[in-house]
């Protein structure tokens, strides 16, 4: 009963992102021992930039997962937003306008998902599986004859440049994470997202606009995918037909690793960002150790399942502690 004096593992595990924080710490330790070039400033900056895409994508996914949904279309939405953005740049539109159109494309993709799911009542994973295919197809059509390239220096600055020694993309990701994190943790909108994911019926009867929340999270996810895609296009200075393929898996893994529950109601932006960082470090370390890059895909899959299992285990443990107390 005396919780003040005893070491309370349950409470510790309940701290947002605690588990994944330890995981990142252990991984960094491992990487710096087994891959000596890991801790060079150049490599660290490289890892951070590499993590940006999944961080941003994962933040959108976190919103969706917490609300009790899933969005499988984010990888394709990335590709589509990037393709549209680069297309607009090449068509001679001013860069800010092109970026805005790219972001709007992502938001529109989220809007379509939201409409299918909230208004037409599709199962979320089927709706987003359909739009995954649909949007990938559009990207393929757009990039079929020519690869969409852009050597626009201002555009390339987005993911290549740095401000005061910090990569610009990392700054963007930080800003997005802080804004999204504060909204989720501190505002009435964020509170509603958790409520909807934990118990949509109760939340509805208590006066939460459940459908509006479910709609918004998919738009947020699309918007994040759009931003992530534009940054990736900037880094690659081109859009290829398969760009973003498989990213949905990585984004889900990052969120799950960060403590987001696939059954809704749990998760945090900080956790997801750390989860994405973990995956980026892992990928970087594997390549530094010249391990076949495809191991990363396998590990991602295993991590998802393990994270889901651990989530269940931790929850049972915490509940048990609460009952015992």
């Amino acid at each position, binding site marked *: 009963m005396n919780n003040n004096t005893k070491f309370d593992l349950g409470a510790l595990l309940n701290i947002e992102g605690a588990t994944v924080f330890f995981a990142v710490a252990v991984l960094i330790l491992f990487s710096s021992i087994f891959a000596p070039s890991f801790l060079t400033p150049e490599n660290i900056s490289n890892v951070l930039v590499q993590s940006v895409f999944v961080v941003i994508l994962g933040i959108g996914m976190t919103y969706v997962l917490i609300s009790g949904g899933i969005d499988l279309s984010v990888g394709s939405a990335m590709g589509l937003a990037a393709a549209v953005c680069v297309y607009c740049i090449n068509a001679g539109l001013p860069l800010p306008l092109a970026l805005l159109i790219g972001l709007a494309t992502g938001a529109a993709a989220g809007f379509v998902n939201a409409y299918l799911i909230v208004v037409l009542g599709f199962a979320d994973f089927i709706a987003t599986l359909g739009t995954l295919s649909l949007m990938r197809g559009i990207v393929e059509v757009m990039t079929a004859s020519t690869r969409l390239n852009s050597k626009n220096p201002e555009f390339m600055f987005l993911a290549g440049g740095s401000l005061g020694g910090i990569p610009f993309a990392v700054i963007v990701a930080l800003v997005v994470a802080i804004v999204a994190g504060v909204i989720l943790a501190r505002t009435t909108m964020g509170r509603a997202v958790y409520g909807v994911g*934990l118990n949509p*019926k109760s939340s509805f*009867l208590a*006066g939460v606009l459940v459908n509006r929340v479910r709609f918004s999270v998919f738009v947020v996810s699309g918007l994040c995918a759009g931003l992530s895609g534009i940054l990736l296009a900037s880094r690659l200075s081109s859009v290829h037909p398969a760009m973003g393929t498989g990213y949905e898996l990585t984004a889900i893994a990052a969120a799950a690793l960060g403590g987001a529950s696939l059954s809704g109601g749990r998760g945090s932006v900080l956790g997801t960002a750390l989860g994405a960082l973990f995956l980026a470090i892992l990928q970087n370390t594997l390549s530094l150790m010249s391990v076949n890059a495809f191991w990363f895909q396998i590990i991602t899959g295993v991590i998802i399942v393990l994270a889901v299992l651990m989530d269940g285990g931790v929850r049972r443990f915490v509940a048990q502690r609460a009952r015992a107390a």
Partner: protein
Amino acid sequence: MKPAQARAAEVRPHLVEVRNVVKRFPGVIALGDAVLEIRPGEVHALLGENGAGKSTLIKLLNGIYQPDGGTIFVNGVDQTIGGPREAQALGISTIYQEHTLAADLSPIENIFLGRELKSASGLIVDRAAMKKRAETLWSQFGGDRRDLGRPVAELGGLKQRLIEIVKALAFEASLVIMDEPTAQLPDGERALLLAHIRAMRDQGVSVLLVTHRLDELAGTVDRVTVFRDGRWVGTMPMSETSVDDIIHKMVGRDVGSMVAAAARDADQPLDDGAPEVLRATGLVRRGVLHDVSLTLRAGEVLGIGGLAGSGRTEVARALIGADPIDAGTIWANGRQVSPSSPADAVKAGIFMVPEERKTQGIVAGLDVSRNITISAPNKVAQSSFIQRRRERQVAAGYVKELRIKTRSPAEFIENLSGGNQQKVLFARALFSDPNIIIVDEPTQGIDVGAKTEVYRLIRDFVARGRSVIVISSELPELLGLSDRVMIMREGRKAGEIAVPIGAASDQAAMALLQRQVMALATGGKIEQQH
């Protein structure tokens, strides 16, 4: 079967006998010293209020639960029932309240599910034999052969019930347990189902009937056993008892006095000139509600009575915009409103504390304070940013005021007892500052002490000139709290009864009122028996 039956003849045991069975759950004794004796070929009613232990007993007879003490005899033999299949092998089949048919399967497939008749090879299903057996049984119930090939989902409620009975009978059940079999059946079909139950008895099958509808007992049931708060109260032949006596045994005296204490004080009568705060006219939701109208005045408690499935909850859901309505108008506080979601109702000053606290009320995973403020988070927020300190203060205030037992407002709500969860939901309602609160089954599954406190909360609320709509299956509670009771039947308003001040403490008056409510709720059958 044979040796057991031989012994049965010697000692004339009961078909099923439950002796001093105890079942505990963490923190609760669901059943203490339960006794139940079922004779061969009788219709036996198992009665009691919510939480009396009926469903626990059924689950024990099915082997879904194992008793913590006592014994269950089947045909005089001490049996450990390991699961539904073992119960079936002993001749005990159960028809649960939630439909347990697979809607996409045909009746034949459902009847033989998991017990398919196989051809000699043992591999192929003997469809002809199954069809024949099902048709024979089905024709005993007067069913059309064509029904047996279609998905169950396409059959009506009565036929689905009958298919479940056939499913039980197809495997030589000697005892069929039916949990609320007539719930949600219209009157005509209900009478037919009861007739089928009598016919089963006449063929030597025993039926254990669990029901809330006391008007079904006379003429169908041979004996009744009453439980209250997990304990056996009595078993008597139906011919030697009355509905009043049964109600008395089910409810117990203490609840009556408890409700009387919650009733309106004689020196605080409802102000005749009090303004109307809610008026609904001609509410229609196709297939669910038919032309329902109601009014509510400031300071008044309006009760909505009726059987489960009669449209009580649906009226409330229509009022708060939880379900769309096809026709009708709603005025709240003098303004016409058309809430398209409960959020609109909150704005209009109407808040509902729903039934089924676990699934529709609490948000498990959020703490007490967040559960309270979810109804109006803007009240503890500044330009959308929630101020945690203010939120905790507000919650602490309610915890103190409503005497919610919790370690702190930061405790997860699922760790509170049912009664305290209910109080948190009241706090949630109060926090949105409504002038009308609708409470649906406010004391479902909470202990006696918590019940009194819930009654007090309702009383305090109306004492401040605000209004409450109470929906309840427990008649003493409904009549005790309400100034006026509106009774629903099959989606229609069946009538309205004014409850005179002081009636709650007058047993004779209460009994009369209860009969009147039951008469309206069931279409006037009770009256004929008295």
